[in-house]
């Protein structure tokens, strides 16, 4: 039943949001692009968690994946290449009431935005961080990305990428004060949904690396992975991501992993023969920077004025 609020001059009915409330412009990604699935999963989480569109902000950098805010019905900030995280952190700093989602690509986050990736995770502000990792620069048409495998042919390395790729998981796990590190793939919608939901529910930065298909510039990479489920290792634990049968069926290699075990998380992340899926690390108690940066937000103008006069007193002759 619709509840009638006492102060019905403000809001007569409790609002119920449908998927339509989270829909923005029509998505313009290529057919078959993994980004579509991420958008759908995120919209479902928004709906199921009944987040107020006016209190939700989707922040992104520049890239194909960074267009995501345009396709949402919330507030959005489509920023600069590599700089989604400082913008998102700034939004959260004095407005901890806002629900912040970040969409960033592998180039955006792991190359041009590297400094912010490291430091934003250290700040551990309460937000959901989705890295769309297609191992390629999509928007600018097929340049090598930090996660392109060695030998992979791109427009900047037509004879194949010449150095080994960066491992985003081991790097992330090495950052102080991380609190939630997960990995998933775009082509298993239930697992993607559960992972984003868990990242969102977590208080702190929910880092999710989404292995994502680019059918136009890196089709062979995803095909190879999709065709060989033995490459993956599904992580199970009561504290981990709750996986349904489809995922269990799709990824037969499974292992129990306690996400509070950082050493084991490292081991799993560093083992390049098996790609871990699920929650690698979780620490619900890591401090969040907005709890510090928002100090004083509630101060009244009168208290501020008194404080300012006290500061002037110290300098008065």
């Amino acid at each position: 039943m619709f509840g009638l609020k006492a102060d019905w001059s403000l809001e007569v009915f409790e609002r119920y949001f449908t998927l339509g409330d989270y829909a923005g412009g029509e998505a313009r990604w290529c057919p078959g692009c993994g980004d579509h699935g991420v958008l759908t999963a995120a919209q479902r989480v928004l709906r199921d968690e009944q987040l107020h569109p006016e209190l939700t902000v989707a922040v992104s950098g520049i890239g194909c994946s960074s267009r995501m805010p345009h396709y949402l019905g919330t507030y959005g900030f489509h920023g600069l290449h590599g700089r989604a995280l400082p913008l998102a952190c700034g939004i959260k700093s004095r407005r901890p009431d806002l629900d912040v989602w970040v969409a960033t690509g592998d180039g955006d986050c792991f190359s041009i935005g590297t400094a912010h990736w490291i430091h934003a995770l250290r700040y551990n502000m309460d937000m959901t961080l989705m890295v769309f990792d297609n191992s390629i620069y999509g928007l600018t048409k097929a340049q090598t990305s930090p996660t392109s495998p060695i030998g992979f042919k791109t427009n900047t390395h037509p004879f194949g990428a010449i150095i080994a790729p960066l491992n985003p998981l081991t790097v992330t796990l090495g950052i102080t004060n991380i609190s939630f590190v997960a990995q998933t793939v775009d082509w298993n919608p239930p697992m993607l949904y559960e992972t984003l939901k868990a990242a969102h529910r977590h208080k702190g930065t929910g880092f999710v690396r989404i292995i994502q298909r680019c059918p136009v510039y890196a089709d062979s990479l995803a095909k190879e992975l999709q065709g060989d489920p033995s490459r993956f290792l599904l992580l199970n634990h009561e504290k981990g991501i709750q996986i349904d049968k489809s995922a269990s069926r799709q990824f037969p290699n499974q292992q129990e992993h306690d996400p509070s075990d950082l050493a084991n998380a490292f081991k799993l992340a560093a083992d390049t023969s098996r790609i871990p899926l699920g929650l690698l690390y979780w620490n619900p108690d890591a401090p969040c920077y907005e709890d510090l940066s928002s100090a004083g937000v509630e101060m009244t103008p009168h208290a501020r004025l008194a404080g300012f006069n006290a500061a002037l007193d110290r300098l008065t002759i």
Partner: protein
Amino acid sequence: MTTTKKETQVERETATASAVGRVAETVDEHIVEIVSDSGEGAQKAGQTFGTVCAKMGNGVWTVEIIPAEIQPPARSPAGASGIRIRLASNYVTNMGDEADVVVAFNEQVLYSRIANGAYKKGTAVLLEDKWRDDAVPEIREKYAKAVAEFKDNGLIVHELPIEKACLEITPNPRRGKNMFVLGMLCQIYSRDIGKARDEIATTFRRKGDKVIGMNQQLFDAGCRFAEEHIDFCYEVPPQAGQEEQKQRFIVTNGNTAVGLGVMASGMELVSMYPITPATSASHYLADAYHQVGGFVHQAEDEIAAIGFAIGSSYAGKTACTITSGPGLALKTEMVGLAVMAEIPLVIVVVQRGGPSTGLPTKVEQGDLLAALYGEPGDAPKVVIAAATIEECLHFVIMSRRLAEAFRTPVILLTDANLATGVQPFPRPEPTIDWLAPPIDQSEWDENIPPYNWDPETGLSPRPVPGMPGGEYILTGLAHTSESKVAYDSDSNQRGCNMRSRKFAALASTLKPPQVHGDPDGDLLVVGWGSTMGAIEEAIDRAQAQEHKVSSVHLRFLSPMEPGLKEIFRRFRKVMTVEINYSDDPQAPLINDDTRRYAQLAWLLRAHTLMDIDCWSAVFGAPLQPGMIYKVLLKRLTAMNEGVDS
């Protein structure tokens, strides 16, 4: 010069030398320096002296002498560290010309000051004499040679056993000598001893009573020492009317003033990355900002710093970022984003010498064009410059108001001269409306687009996250009034028109700048930023010599204040005086085709289509009135000879 020895005498309230039979000579103003190796506390002594002078009603300007290196070797010219204090019976706006009295802890540091033209014939040098008998022969030789040279150059050297006298009180005079010197100066300038002792107590309040007591003891000894060893004594009367005035004053440097401006403006967030000479503004805020509920975020780099500030502004909490030239360079792309997406933001740039790492601690006005035109594409914004330390405070408040009213980033330019200069100025009387109200979270009419540009003014109201119905996607891409990405010709042209028109609207609210001096004449000097005091002092001197010169000082650089052409037309010649690079017209290969102009001159030439000349220098030092005065005379002579008019 002989030194008279006097008997020690009883405690007095004021160090008037007349009490011991010496009559204080009354002067309008004096310039005093304390120069030492770094770490000897000269700056603390000088700041305290300046504060005592301000409290006694004098006009005061103090400026730090900063060594060229971080850890310079002891007793080296490059290591000269210290402070200059100009005290006067009228309002002081700049560091002045040559010093009258200098206290030096060793003779070597004086060389760099001499090279800077800091002294004149007759400047009294109160020199620590312990080096004369140093165990190292080389030091003894250097000392003797320097003293002889100084005397030959007309300096009046008083060799004084300062350290020896301190040793009678403390085993470690390196740490206490500064307060001893403070005592000497307070004696020489007939300062109020009670005020000085109170000031010492305030300076060392965090160190406890024992330290305060020791420093006051050294101070007292310094007073007695000067009385015994120094045969001159001055009185610099307070500014007229100062005593009766009820107005209260605060004493700060320009960076603290910026910090106070941030607090007074109601901005709750400063997001910064450390860079000289801007950082001390954030140091001040880090210590005081919580009193008004604010927070200083030290970001991982300048890009993140401004990004964080922009995020906060977007979310309804207009923020500030404070930096210097190299930091501004890194922030450029973000400034462009704030322009494109019309995000209010305050960017304070405390300019230093450039390009590249340049002269980190020294003054330059080299970032004007970068502030105006640094970004790709057309990125109009507000650029203003503070001319005084007091304006550093009030212009931050103005910046926030302009940023929000015009939905724009505002760059406020100050510089190392303002940042390190210390001056008393009227205490601001803040009211509750200075501190912005809580952000508006009321419903937004869904039919009003996020950029509902008024076609006349380009202005539009701004939805803020939390407002139901206002949901929009901000983007740095070309966009329509709905904030929809649009690559078509009309949308791009319209967006550019609207973002530019705002500044014509702002300009229409500004008044023409005031001319200092007669409204017409032979030569008009145009300045901006920290040079105002020195320029106006030079103009006053030239006017006193019957020269028809005036000056005008610009606060708004974008948009420009109106009526400039009208003002300029009334003078035979117009020139800017600036601290940035320009080609000397007499230099090899320089002619009308090749000459590069100083930055304001460049701007004014484009703005007015008038043949505006310039004189500028990049000495890494503030301009001094005497220097500008000489330039004016030269230009006037050339004009009258018809060489260059």
